[in-house]
């Protein structure tokens, strides 16, 4: 380990890909190390793919893909003697996700003969502890959310808190070569090491935001990794693919990506302010950024994410090609819903409102629904019926009642039964539990590390 008493002139951060398990060419790593990387940081998760991963506590990525990426990253971290930080392990950052990645890391270290100290940081939260925080007025809604009630907390299958850089820094200070973090802000994963080495928060947080999605801030987002060097006055950034460029526009535009406000972004300990940032091309593929600021907040807050079961689902699919039906497809859909509701009441004795169904007409107006402006008569329509009920047996039973309607329901004016095109046999698939994100709240904390638990092991 280098002398850590005085801040270095700069800290180099290698981000090999926007998502662990997405893959990257091995050249990405050699290039990043030759540029003088001091840390490798990679995000392992996101809420972007929906509430299932947090609700079920499973990863979106596969073990094979994650093992492949980690094998390259662990070898690089070990040979260059620099730390590796993985954030939001297992997609949603549940404790099961951290342990899943940790098991893969341990297996690789044994197979490849690596001697690395691994820190696991757990971010999963107990509903009863949060209820106590709620009762003492320390939980606040974020816009556009409603104030929280305790019942919502207890409904959650899993709750995670998003850590800032402090628990990650604590793990590295304790000697971790590899930090496997539960849910963390995307930026904290990249910022932690640079902040620990005394880099200024304004450029560090801004750089961390720009590099968190890998190649998204370059002229060719599909090429993967990026390298940033942070110093006392700003940061410089370049892609790790030699044929790709960072331009002032591609870097500045990344502040737009998946953000509500492109000028300010709240972190647990304060706000990144980039309205005054200047983006300067150093050459045709490297950009210098100066003028970014970080405003510390008076109250440190940890954001919560929680997913609760909304029901159990079955999905059915059928195709309609008959122009006579398609000319009156709105009428057919209305007749379908009315008929299904009556049959579920008559046969299963379930009142409307105790179950849910969404009939989606793909090829007509499924995606935008009522926002679709006067769609034309389509050539064909894929009819997807999504049924939700309080248990799987009921969702399946409703879908089986719907099956003959999806196959044969005529228009109300027709005096014969048409037959439509099922794509598969059976035409339905049980989806199991379905989840919804139900928390959009923050907790006031006295210490940035108090909600997170660390375990150190020598792999």
């Amino acid at each position: 380990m280098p002398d850590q008493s005085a801040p270095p002139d700069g800290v180099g951060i290698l981000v090999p890909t926007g998502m662990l398990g997405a893959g990257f060419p091995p050249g990405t790593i050699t290039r990043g190390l030759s540029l003088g990387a001091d840390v490798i940081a990679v995000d392992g998760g996101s809420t972007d793919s929906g509430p299932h991963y947090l609700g079920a506590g499973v990863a979106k990525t596969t073990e094979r893909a994650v093992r492949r990426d980690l094998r390259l990253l662990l070898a690089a971290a070990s040979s260059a003697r620099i730390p590796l930080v993985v954030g939001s392990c297992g997609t949603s950052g549940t404790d099961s996700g951290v342990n899943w990645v940790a098991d893969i890391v341990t297996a690789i270290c044994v197979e490849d003969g690596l001697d690395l100290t691994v820190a696991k940081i757990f971010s999963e939260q107990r509903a009863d502890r949060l209820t106590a925080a709620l009762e003492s007025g320390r939980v606040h809604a974020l816009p556009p959310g409603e104030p929280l009630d305790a019942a919502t907390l207890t409904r959650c299958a899993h709750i995670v808190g998003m850590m800032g850089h402090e628990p990650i820094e604590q793990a590295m200070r304790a000697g971790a070569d590899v930090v496997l973090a539960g849910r963390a802000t995307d930026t904290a994963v990249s910022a932690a090491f640079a902040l620990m080495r005394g880099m200024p928060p304004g450029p560090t947080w801004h750089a961390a935001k720009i590099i968190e999605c890998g190649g998204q801030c370059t002229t060719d987002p599909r090429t993967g990794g990026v390298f940033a060097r942070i110093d006392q006055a700003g940061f410089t950034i370049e892609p790790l693919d030699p044929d790709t460029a960072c331009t002032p526009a591609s870097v500045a535009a990344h502040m737009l990506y998946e953000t509500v406000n492109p000028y300010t972004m709240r972190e647990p300990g304060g706000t990144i302010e980039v309205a005054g940032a200047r983006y300067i091309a150093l050459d045709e593929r490297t950009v210098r950024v100066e003028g970014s600021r970080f405003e510390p907040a008076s109250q440190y807050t940890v954001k919560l994410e929680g997913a609760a079961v909304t029901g159990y689902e079955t999905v059915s699919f059928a195709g309609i090609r008959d122009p006579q039906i398609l000319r009156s497809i709105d009428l057919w859909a209305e007749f379908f819903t009315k008929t299904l509701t009556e049959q579920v009441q008559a046969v299963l004795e379930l009142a409307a409102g105790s179950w849910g169904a969404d009939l989606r007409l793909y090829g007509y107006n499924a995606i935008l629904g009522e926002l679709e402006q006067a769609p034309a008569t389509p050539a064909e329509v894929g009819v997807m019926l999504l049924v939700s009920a309080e248990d799987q047996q009921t969702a399946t039973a409703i879908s089986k009642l719907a099956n003959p309607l999806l196959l044969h329901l005529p228009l109300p004016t027709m005096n014969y039964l048409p037959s439509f095109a099922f794509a598969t046999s059976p035409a339905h698939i049980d989806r199991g539990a379905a989840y919804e994100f139900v928390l959009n709240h923050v907790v006031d904390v006295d210490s940035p590390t108090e909600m997170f638990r660390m375990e150190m092991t020598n792999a």
Partner: protein
Amino acid sequence: MLDTGNAPQTLGDLAREVRSKNAGPFWMTLEAFMPDAGSYRVAAALITAELISELYHVAPASLQIFRIPDLHVVKVSFPRPLAQGSLYDRDMHAGQHHVPLANTVVPGTSP
């Protein structure tokens, strides 16, 4: 600057890219990337709270509009009418919600 011939032009015709995406599970954000200062001025004038409210059935007061001349970009953010992944949400990443904005006809280009 603009081809004001007979065919109506949409914002999508003029733009380099019009896109939409989640900004977390509870917000949606739209961006129009325009190719130059002239087309940016057209987009900046066209994209108003009234237009977005009408196209997306959201309250004007809930909208945030950012006009960014340096990047030739207009960005609009608003709360998702349906939380991501709920039963009636048909666009998990809000990746196709740019279309009503992209299809908006630019005034002065209609026949």
